[in-house]
């Protein structure tokens, strides 16, 4: 018997964890570099605005009361459009998940609609739904509809069939099975689809406000872009980013509440 050699450890890595403060440090470092660069003239005014000027512009926007004048219509558009798109999307997705004929009829249609850039249809929506709020709601609703449908029917497909058979074996009604077994079972998939749908809704907000919007975050950004007003452009973009973070946090909270049975 020779001397035992230690077995070397080889099971490390491949398990990333998120460290809380790193994200904030990256943000602050980037902004600091931009501030120093623009202050010293190493970054030209044409390339990037001064972060401090952007903050200043934001404060002015807030103090002038224009912030809410822009945010309120945008949030309304997001809310109404996304609510329409998501609720119709979930309903259609569940129907596709449950019925053979609807599945055969609608899956190819959804696949055909999915890749259409919804922005391309904006002029058409203006004719159909009017240049005011209707076309904006429609664009956001349409944009959130397709990813929701796809996520929902995928999630319904993944609901454990034995649970459905169990429901049937206890004589539960069709509606009870859908409400108490299919929907909760599909909820994790629906919610992760919702993350994507709502991010798309925010992207489409700018597109929706291209036509005929005097106020709105998207209109504000477009105007800043056409005036080459970089401070305002960055303020608008930052508001959209915050909106995205907010939506993501809200879905996170909903997930923690609705899916607390999972963790």
């Amino acid at each position, binding site marked *: 018997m020779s001397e035992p050699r230690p077995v070397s450890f080889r099971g490390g890595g491949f398990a990333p964890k998120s460290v809380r403060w790193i994200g904030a440090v990256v943000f602050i470092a980037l902004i600091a570099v931009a501030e120093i660069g623009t202050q010293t003239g190493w970054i*030209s*005014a*044409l390339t990037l605005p001064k972060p401090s000027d952007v903050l200043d512009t934001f404060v002015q926007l807030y103090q002038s009361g224009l912030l809410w004048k822009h945010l309120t219509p945008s949030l309304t558009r997001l809310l109404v459009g996304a609510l329409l798109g998501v609720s119709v999307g979930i309903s259609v997705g569940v129907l596709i998940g449950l019925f053979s004929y609807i599945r055969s009829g609608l899956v190819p249609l959804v696949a055909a609609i999915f890749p259409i850039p919804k922005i391309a249809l904006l*002029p058409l929506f*203006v*004719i159909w739904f*009017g*240049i005011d709020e209707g076309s904006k709601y429609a664009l956001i609703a349409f944009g959130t509809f397709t990813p929701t449908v796809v996520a929902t029917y995928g999630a319904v497909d993944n609901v454990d069939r034995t649970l459905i058979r169990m429901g049937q074996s206890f004589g539960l009604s069709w509606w009870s099975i859908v409400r108490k077994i299919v929907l909760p079972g599909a909820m994790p998939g629906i919610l992760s689809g919702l993350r994507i749908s709502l991010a798309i809704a925010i992207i489409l907000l700018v597109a929706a406000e*291209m*036509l*005929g*919007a*005097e106020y709105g975050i998207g*209109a504000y950004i*477009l*105007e800043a872009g*056409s*005036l*080459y*007003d970089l401070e305002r452009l960055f303020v608008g973009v930052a508001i959209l980013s915050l909106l995205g973070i907010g939506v993501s946090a809200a879905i996170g909270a909903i997930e923690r509440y609705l899916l607390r049975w999972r963790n």
Partner: protein
Amino acid sequence: MTTFTRRRTLQLAGAGALALATPAIAAKRKITVGALRFTSHSASFVALERGYFADVGLDVEFKFFQAAQPMAVAIASKDIDYAVTAISGGLVSLAQKGAIKVIGGALSEEKGIDGQKILASNDAHAAGLTSPAALDGKTWAVTQAGSSFHYMGSKISAAEGATLKYKPLQKVGAIIGALKSSQVDAWSIVPHIAKGLGGAGAVQIIGDVADYIPNYQVTTVFTSADNAANERAATEGFVKAFSAGAADFNAALVDKTAGDGTDMVKLVHKYVYADREFAKAEKSIRAGSMRINQGAALNVTSVEDQLNWFKSEGLVDGDITLDTLLDTSYVETA
């Protein structure tokens, strides 16, 4: 500022010399000119086709755009050297950032010559919008806040004591669609588009912009601040060739002193409405011919009025002066 003035004095001396003799530019210099496929951009097309650019030693390549706004950005990013477009808020902002300079004038409104028209949608017209006096409370289409359409709407409504609601629609095509379907009430646009739409009965023409904004300097010639300050010879050459092109164009299609202008229409047709058959294109080209300023002269009074309007609307920084925007050393000013 002092260096600027000194250099400017030198430049003025150089400009005097240019009038006497064509400068001896040895090698051909390659420049890129931004253009829209509009009749109003014809001066550049003529200058290229008739060799005026070559005469001043410039090897010109065109880069075509869909809208005026990106051209200003392309000048700032040095992707193009010279371009012609309306003064917009974006242009002023870029000038403030030291990126671009307006060096001359192109299209002007002039009494007696067909200029930009005020349009009303059919529904609005039927509801009583038969003259600009009835504009109060109506919606006015603009591409963007701070665009020339916004300026015109604002000036016209101010003259009529009306309050307009502006609808930003980004693109001329989108505006035409919205106007045809009566989603917006009114708009103003260059004559050939106005007449095309009005003639087809899709919209109603209710007035002339020239009645409200006389001597309106609609479009200007502009370049990067770097070219204006440091590429004197090339810039002068461009202005000279552009002016020669403008003179030919005016003589053929505006003043009609050079025959029936068919040659000129053929030339322009190579660039504008190239996808349409000649007979149809000819009508539009002739209808869209507005005067391009002789010698690219610049109406500073009109530019100042526009700049003041941008400031009053809060679209641009209140500190911007006319000097920041203009380099008047190249052309005659009024």
